[in-house]
């Protein structure tokens, strides 16, 4: 087996044909992790022993002829999804020794398939960041160029797959945290429709925005993983009912480009690569239509009000009383304040304070409530757009992967990474990033992500267009 080119689809065929066993495949990944992960740092913890046991269980299932699409497939899991009995830290010191007391629904579903869990992948603390540099356990490097970040916050998941340290991975996306690292590492990343995948057992960041999704080498692999984790879950009251009509497969034909949004802030050569992808889609029979979505450029500002507001409330439960780090002090108030000061990193503390500000009496109308109404305007612009086009397309990021340390001292520069990603989460629509073309920085070829945004529940059309981009 060649891990560099291996896909879930090909591994499934080879495992079922008994060309190699799930244990062979798992050992191949564990060996590579042992050799390579010291420099990449994709994993916070590798579960070698249990992975081998899971592989043997998968082999038994395959031997009985009962394999499922992901039986024996070695995956990396972002460190914010609960696996019973395992430490889950969300990249934070405050949960350094916290053990999950139950399985996240996505984990339970993957266990039914008998997947192999290789380990937990590094991430920005509580999924807040665009480079994985906010992890309390040190940054992850981009396997394509070790001087550069892999993106974030699911940077460990992306680096694991791009570095061939896992066949695919789960990430979570609150404002681009699957798509942006996928773009920076040359992978496919899917942010499903809000509510399509259960979030029971996902450590919450921004509850009106968060979704779990796959990072994989191909659109086909991303679809296989998405199909395994999706579906209604009574344990997540925001999960959507399984629809009857989501098997409708009208072929998408018209793609909308919000041109005005691309006028500034995008690297010229990256924009040229984007245009080239549009040309090749035109050659495949798509109609490319310019569309007007004038409020999209405000998405980033809206996001940086709503998200910190939700972060400050979600993280209020981390106070040193029920679980996680607890710093002793004389009064209960000091226990809270000192635990949170020691347990949270600088970016988390910053966002908790910004969130507290925008929700505080006297400011809540001008910031939080105003942001909610502009969010509605953005959502309506998507509604209108999808009356005329089958998908909206944009670059995933305004620039390729950047060099470690270049944005850590300027929060606003880091936030700008997500300008094209956040409107998707605000509207709750699905989007996929597919690698298409390259740009060169310091003599190194770096991948560019092409982002396809679909209407609510239309993941299927994203896969169709995504495969056309892959073949372009």
């Amino acid at each position, binding site marked *: 087996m060649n891990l560099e080119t291996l896909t879930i689809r090909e591994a499934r065929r080879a495992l079922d044909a008994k060309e190699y066993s799930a244990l062979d495949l798992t050992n191949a990944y564990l060996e590579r992790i042992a050799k390579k992960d010291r420099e990449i740092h994709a994993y916070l913890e590798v579960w070698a022993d249990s992975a081998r046991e899971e592989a043997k269980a998968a082999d038994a299932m395959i031997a009985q002829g009962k394999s499922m699409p992901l039986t024996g497939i070695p995956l990396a899991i972002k460190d914010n999804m609960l696996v019973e009995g395992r430490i889950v830290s969300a990249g934070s010191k405050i949960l350094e020794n*916290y*053990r999950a*007391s139950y399985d996240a629904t996505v984990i339970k579903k993957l266990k039914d398939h008998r997947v192999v869990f290789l380990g937990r992948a590094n991430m920005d603390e509580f999924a807040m960041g665009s480079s994985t540099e906010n992890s309390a356990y040190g940054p992850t490097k981009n396997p394509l160029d070790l001087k550069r970040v892999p993106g974030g916050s699911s940077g460990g998941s992306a680096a694991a797959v791009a570095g061939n340290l896992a066949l695919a991975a789960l990430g979570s996306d609150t404002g681009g945290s699957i798509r942006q690292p996928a773009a920076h590492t040359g992978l496919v990343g899917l942010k499903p429709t809000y509510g399509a995948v259960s979030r029971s057992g996902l450590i919450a960041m921004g509850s*009106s925005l968060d979704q779990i999704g796959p990072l994989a080498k191909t659109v086909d692999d991303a679809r296989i993983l998405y199909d395994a984790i999706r579906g209604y879950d009574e344990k997540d*009251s*925001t999960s959507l009912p399984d629809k009857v009509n989501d098997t409708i497969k009208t072929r998408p034909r018209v793609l909308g480009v919000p041109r005005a949004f691309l006028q500034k802030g995008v690297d010229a050569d990256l924009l040229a690569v984007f245009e080239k992808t549009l040309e090749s889609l035109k050659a495949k029979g798509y109609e490319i239509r310019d569309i007007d979505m004038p*409020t999209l450029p*405000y998405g980033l*500002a*809206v996001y*940086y*009000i709503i998200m910190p507001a939700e972060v*400050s409330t979600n993280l*209020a439960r981390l*106070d*040193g*009383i*029920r*679980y*996680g*780090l*607890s710093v002793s*002090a*004389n*009064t*209960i*108030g*000091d*226990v*809270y*304040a000192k635990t*949170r*000061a020691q347990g*949270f990193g*600088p970016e988390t*503390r*910053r966002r*908790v*304070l*910004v969130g*507290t*500000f*925008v929700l*505080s009496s006297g400011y809540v109308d*001008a*910031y939080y*409530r*105003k*942001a*909610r*109404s*502009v*969010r*509605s*305007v953005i*959502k*309506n612009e998507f509604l209108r757009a999808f009356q005329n086009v089958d998908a909206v397309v944009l670059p995933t990021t305004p620039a390729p992967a950047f060099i470690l340390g270049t944005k850590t001292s300027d*929060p*606003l520069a880091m*936030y700008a990474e997500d300008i094209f990603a956040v409107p998707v989460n605000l509207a709750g629509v699905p989007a996929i990033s597919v690698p298409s073309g390259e740009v060169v920085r310091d003599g190194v070829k770096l991948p560019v992500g092409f982002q396809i945004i679909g209407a609510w529940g239309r993941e299927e059309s994203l896969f169709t267009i995504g495969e056309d981009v892959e073949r372009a």
Partner: protein
Amino acid sequence: MTDIQVDIEALAKLARLEVSPEERARLEKEIPNILEFVKTIQAVSAQEAGEQKDSSGLRNVMRADENPHESGIYTDTLLEAAPAREGNRVAVKQVISRSKKS
């Protein structure tokens, strides 16, 4: 540069977060800059935004308060995660205390 001023100490108190003097000095610059940036949403027409007030369809969804699980079956698992335990309870510092001054 911005004219927004933020009382970081008051904010930190609200957020139950201890902030060191050095960090406070840094945040006194950073947070106003962030707020200055996000304030740009004021430019979205009040009329259009006003009409759309909370039409996002997002609302809190609550589960009905019924069919509880058997009492006690998760007690040990959950208490194992607690920093301090007394019997079947999470132990905490005294919450209400008599002021020593006054």
